[in-house]
């Protein structure tokens, strides 16, 4: 009896492993996707261990060393130093933390809220709740997300947390629209009708029957959005509505550095490149995941 059971689980695991290998094969066929994955993993690694990797961890705060102020990139300071003598490279490493927290935090709020509302609106079609949710979505999508996020953070105190709230506020509607579209087509499938027939609860149908079939596109969008959210976060801190100095944030560094162009160009250019690379990494990864999850056979 027991041996049969282990055999079964073994088989299950083997099938899972096989599936994983297939997915990885499909994913890794495109070298750009692998490149994106490497960028993303590197950025996360740097963010986690910034205090160990950064050459000058103390430069992440209010640190002044006027003797080394404005050093061009080179010996000792790979990306040069800023107007207070702080190492740009170390500050970029530490600002990855805020960027990653921003991305994860916003998605952690916007995705569950957005997806759940979309599932409800898609499943309860014809009821009053559908137009209520979807017309609200229309209104939220009538403004560029950056403008909406700016408007909300303008009335809040400028902190990393508040800017995360502001971006989430501007972001959930995209997920509602996405899951609404999928839920409204899935609800007509036979297995949903069967589940209704045997008296499954509505919550069960929403979360156990419809949701799992929406996860692929949602997951793809989340990966792509990590990059865009980080970009919006950087834009907010660029205008001074994110993490406050002396804590480093990519946008703030670009904005401050822009004042010293062209003589101390490295102040703005390296943080700007860092933003570019993060967004590029998540984009390549997201494209790769989309290709991987697409049903098209290899």
């Amino acid at each position, binding site marked *: 009896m027991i041996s049969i059971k282990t055999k079964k689980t073994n088989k299950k695991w083997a099938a899972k492993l096989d599936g994983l290998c297939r997915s990885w094969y499909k994913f890794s066929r495109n070298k750009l996707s692998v490149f994106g994955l490497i960028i993303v993993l590197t950025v996360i690694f740097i963010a986690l261990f910034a205090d160990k990797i950064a050459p000058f961890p103390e430069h992440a705060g209010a640190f002044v060393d006027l003797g080394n102020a404005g050093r061009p990139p080179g010996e000792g300071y790979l990306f040069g130093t800023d107007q207070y003598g702080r190492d740009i490279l170390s500050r970029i490493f530490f600002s990855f933390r805020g960027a990653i927290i921003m991305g994860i935090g916003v998605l952690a709020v916007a995705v569950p809220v957005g997806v759940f509302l979309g599932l409800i609106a898609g499943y309860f079609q014809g009821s009053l709740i559908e137009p209520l949710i979807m*017309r*609200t979505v*229309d*209104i*939220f999508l*009538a*403004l*560029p*997300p*950056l*403008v*909406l996020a*700016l*408007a*909300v*953070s*303008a*009335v*809040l105190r400028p902190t990393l947390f508040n800017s995360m709230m502001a971006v989430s506020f501007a972001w959930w509607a995209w997920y509602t629209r996405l899951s609404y579209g999928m839920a409204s087509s899935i609800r007509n499938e036979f297995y949903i009708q069967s589940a209704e027939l045997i008296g499954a609860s509505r919550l069960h149908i929403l979360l156990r029957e419809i949701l799992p079939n929406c996860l692929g596109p949602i997951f793809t969008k989340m990966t792509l959005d990590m*990059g865009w959210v980080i*970009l919006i976060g*950087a*834009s907010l801190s*660029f*205008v*001074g*509505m994110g993490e406050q100095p002396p804590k480093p944030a990519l946008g703030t560094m*670009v*904005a401050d550095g*822009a004042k010293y*162009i*062209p003589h101390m*160009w490295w102040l*703005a*250019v390296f943080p*700007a*490149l860092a*933003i*570019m690379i993060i*967004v*590029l990494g998540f*984009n390549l990864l997201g494209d790769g995941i989309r290709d991987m999850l697409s049903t098209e056979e290899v």
Partner: protein
Amino acid sequence: MKSRHFIIHRLAWSVFVLVGLSILIFFIARVIPGDPARMALGPRAPQWAVDNLVKELHLNEPIYVQYWLWLKGVLHGDFGTSLVTRRPVSADIKEFFPATLELIVVAAIIETVGGILLGALSARYSGSWFDSLVRLIAYLGVVTPAFVWAIIFMLIFGYVWPILPILGRIDSNLTVPPTVTGLMTIDSLLAGDFEAFKSAFLHLLLPALALAMGGMSQAARITRASMSENLSRDYVGSEMAAGIPMKLIILKYVLRPSLIPTVTIIALDIAAMLGNAFLVELVFNYPGISRYGINAMLTKDLNAIVAVIMVIGLAFVVMNFIVDLIVAYLDPRIRLQGGK
């Protein structure tokens, strides 16, 4: 008959979205801060000043009365007075919006022409070195934020190879042409001042290019994809078999259906430019509505914030309406279904 139905349908939708947007923005500015008057004036303002502002903004009334009073003002073109400069906000908007409009029009032209041209050429010569180059630039263009382009262009064309002006709207030693339309290039032409026109136009180029880069890349990618798809359709093959020159096939039969997704993307991006203009104007110190809006946000000038967001929302909704009309013109299937 059908297309009239379509237009009315979309128009009603636009009005609905605008009303919803105004409620949303109004509530953001009045409800989130807790005590808007105190926030606008700062913690050190005397109590009597706060009380005066409460009266001026009707904060002692219920929120729906406040909204109604505000809406009545807005419909008469009155956004209230700035809480910081005490100037009427509408006058400020009238002064700064044309500058942004001018910037966005130039950016939109660059984006449309550049995006379609690059995408079409890249699809026509797919697989060539030109195609690879366009795809690489397009990928970089999509992932690079507008303010990063702004800084890169500023460094390259302002300092390393100084061929273009980088700050403001016009050379400081030229006289500003009298304001007629508020668009400096047109005003200088109306005044017959070609030197001012040249200067104003050159000042527009870099910020416009920085604004356009992202959308242009996206437009090029979309055009390339949809054109490659259409080029592999059977009708192209039969037209080629009939001996119609390739140039004619592309211009007359392939381009129009290929442009439908492009137009949608470009128009949405032009509307989104209003958001990105916020950052680009800041970099180039360009006196447009976005720079005005950022200042309003930093000084917590509630009336000005609401006005700026509403103007941007209005522009966004109008753009969407225009896109729907253009797409309906390009794609008869949408037009004939009456907007369903």
